[in-house]
């Protein structure tokens, strides 16, 4: 019996088609996802594995991102039961990989990921640590402008704004007001409230397009707040101008994808999943997308495998991560869910040709730049605290138009950011 088992595991290691060695044993893996809209995709991947794994049960367990991150933190620190495929962004996964809580990918998977024909270096690095592959790249969060073409035409605007200044001008022209001058349809929907951290993330994207960044890696592994400067003043100034001077948006107006789908806002910046969401909820909406003036966030999300499952189950989990990257599954993902797959060498033209909106995510200018959220454990604490401060700033009309006051505010916020970095020994002196 033991002999047989070791023979099996040897076979499993040796071949990616390990399933053939175990045709009759029931197998089970769980897929832990933080994006509920990915559920049909994972179910489809599970279906596509039926040929190789006829007895495999796949439990897809999606919950909202925050709760997902919490269950992963608690699960990994105590040891997950069974074999689980865990979907995590590079920035969140980093600390678990560094703490040795995530196993490295087996040889065949590592080979698949490292093959330049499959993934660009950026994505390979994002799934690796110390040159060892730990995860399988899957999709990325990348932002672009979504705008309502009907409203643009009515306002006499052609094409998307091209500079950050134009964003405010456009927003002013696009805002629809009631007889008292209060906006009823916002010109540009900004993230002004909600579950803390997101506010900082969205502001970061605007900041980046003004030439700043939230934290700067001054030397390897050492960071510093990068927003108490001209770019920061412009970014926060732009928010305040839109809220209090141009009055293109208010804090309590409906916002985000939901508002865009209901034509309660003319434009907003978001990731590509909105395309899938619009297709499902507002298929008749007339809209287009455009790249941002300077560049966007690119947040790679990878699939990792952890848990105490049997060798066979663990291998099945890794094969699941690989099967998710099958070209036909990825095309389905792009078309039906809207998240951008990271794999290269796949022909997505059937989708991008048909759905014009994807072009802004795929065909961006040559000099378009990307940034990503650094993989440090305090990044969330840091963003939550900045978000709390930003929320106060957004509610403060007195700061509007007063660059000195904005600068003073940013300096005090940066001080806090640096203090947190210092606490963790990550501050660049």
């Amino acid at each position, binding site marked *: 019996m033991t002999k047989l088992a070791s023979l099996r595991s040897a076979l499993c290691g040796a071949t990616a088609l390990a399933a053939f060695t175990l045709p009759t044993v029931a197998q089970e893996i769980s897929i832990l996802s933080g994006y509920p809209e990915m559920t049909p995709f994972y179910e489809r991947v599970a279906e596509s594995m039926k040929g190789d794994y006829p007895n495999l049960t796949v439990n897809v367990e999606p919950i909202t991102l925050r709760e997902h991150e919490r269950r992963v933190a608690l699960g990994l620190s105590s040891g997950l039961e069974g074999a689980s495929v865990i979907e995590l962004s590079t920035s969140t996964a980093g600390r678990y990989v560094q703490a040795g809580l995530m196993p490295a990918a087996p040889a065949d998977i590592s080979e698949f990921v490292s093959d330049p024909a499959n993934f660009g270096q950026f994505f390979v690095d994002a799934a690796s640590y110390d040159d060892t592959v730990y995860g399988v790249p899957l999709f990325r969060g990348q932002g672009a402008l979504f705008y309502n073409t009907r409203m643009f035409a009515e306002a006499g605007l052609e094409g998307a704004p091209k500079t950050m200044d134009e964003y405010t001008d456009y927003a002013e022209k696009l805002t629809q007001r009631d007889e008292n001058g209060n906006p009823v349809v916002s010109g540009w929907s900004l993230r002004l409230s909600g579950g803390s951290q997101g506010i900082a993330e969205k502001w970061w994207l605007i900041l980046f397009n003004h030439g700043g960044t939230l934290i700067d890696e001054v030397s390897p592994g050492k960071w510093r707040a990068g927003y108490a400067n001209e770019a920061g003043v412009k970014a926060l100034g732009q928010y305040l101008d839109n809220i209090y001077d141009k009055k293109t948006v208010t804090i309590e107006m409906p916002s985000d994808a939901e508002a865009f789908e209901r034509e309660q806002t003319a434009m907003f910046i978001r990731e590509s999943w909105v395309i899938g969401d619009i297709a499902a909820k507002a298929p008749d909406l007339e809209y287009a997308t455009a790249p941002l003036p300077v560049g966007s966030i690119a947040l790679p999300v990878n699939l990792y495998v952890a848990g105490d499952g049997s060798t066979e189950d663990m291998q099945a989990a890794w094969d699941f991560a690989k099967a998710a990257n099958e070209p036909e599954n990825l095309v389905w993902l792009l078309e039906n869910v809207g998240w951008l797959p990271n794999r290269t060498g796949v022909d997505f033209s059937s989708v991008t040709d048909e759905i014009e909106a994807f072009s802004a995510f795929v065909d961006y200018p040559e000099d378009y730049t990307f940034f990503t959220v650094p993989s440090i454990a305090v990044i*969330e604490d840091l963003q939550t605290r900045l978000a709390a401060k930003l929320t106060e700033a957004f509610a403060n009309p007195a700061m509007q138009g007063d660059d000195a006051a904005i600068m003073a505010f940013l300096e005090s916020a940066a001080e806090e950011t640096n203090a947190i970095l210092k606490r963790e020994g990550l501050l660049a002196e």
Partner: protein
Amino acid sequence: MLRRRRFRFAILALLPTFAIFAWVRMGPIVQTMNLSVRDWDLIGTNRPFIGLANFVELFGDSLFLTALVNTAIIAFGVMLLTIPTAMVLAGLIHYRTRSRFAGFYETSVFIPHVVSLVPAAMAWKWIFDAKLGPLNALIVSLGGSPQSWLFDPNLALFSIIVLCSWQALGYAVLIYLVGFRNLPTSVYEAARLDGASGIQAFRFLSIPLLKPITLYVSVVTLVSGFNVYAQAFVLASDSQGAPGRQVRVLVLDMLENAFRNYRVGYAAAEAMVLLLIVLILTGAQFALLREKGNSK
């Protein structure tokens, strides 16, 4: 001999319950104290002792201080709104005990106290919604201007206070009703013969006589107010189309520090602060009661 046997039975009978208490209550409480003076990141095995550093940091932490202030405002706000309302309401319900609607009064006031928190909070989230909610519809139809209940920092706090009071009211009314039923009727008879009106009797007899009950209900309301969490969580829940302002309260900040920022020791220090507040409030209650007992 007999006493011995009885003692043995008592100990054996108490043992299982006591063991459970030690295991699920006292143990964790002691552990919280222990963790509060340590630094632990949830995934490491290292939990170095760092003395009072967590507490020192807490009192310079703007988020924690915001949470503390918010929680205190909510707790006292709920108390100030609930106690007088409950007393008047209980007085009226007691006065109309023989009304054929008496059962309805009691049930309707009490139901919010027993329904699950989340559905109730969802209902209120809709009511307070700036763009869709009936509250603003009512205000507009009365000629007022709509308010952004869940976004304005003060109104968001107010909304939570209303929600919590709605839930707490039933309990307070019930306790007051018991109080009213136990009041000596002879005193009221005498007052009535002296020509006191119902309002006068309430003002000069009921309120002073019910003082111990007021004290008790106030402390219970305050303490549960300090534990507010689900209400804030749901009212600002991150549904991205219609988010609300995140009202930071103690328990929320604590859970975020423990499970999101991976600072379990720091969160435990917060828990100790919460415990301290509750102990002070309870202590104050006992002190007030004793003072009252002495003055008699």
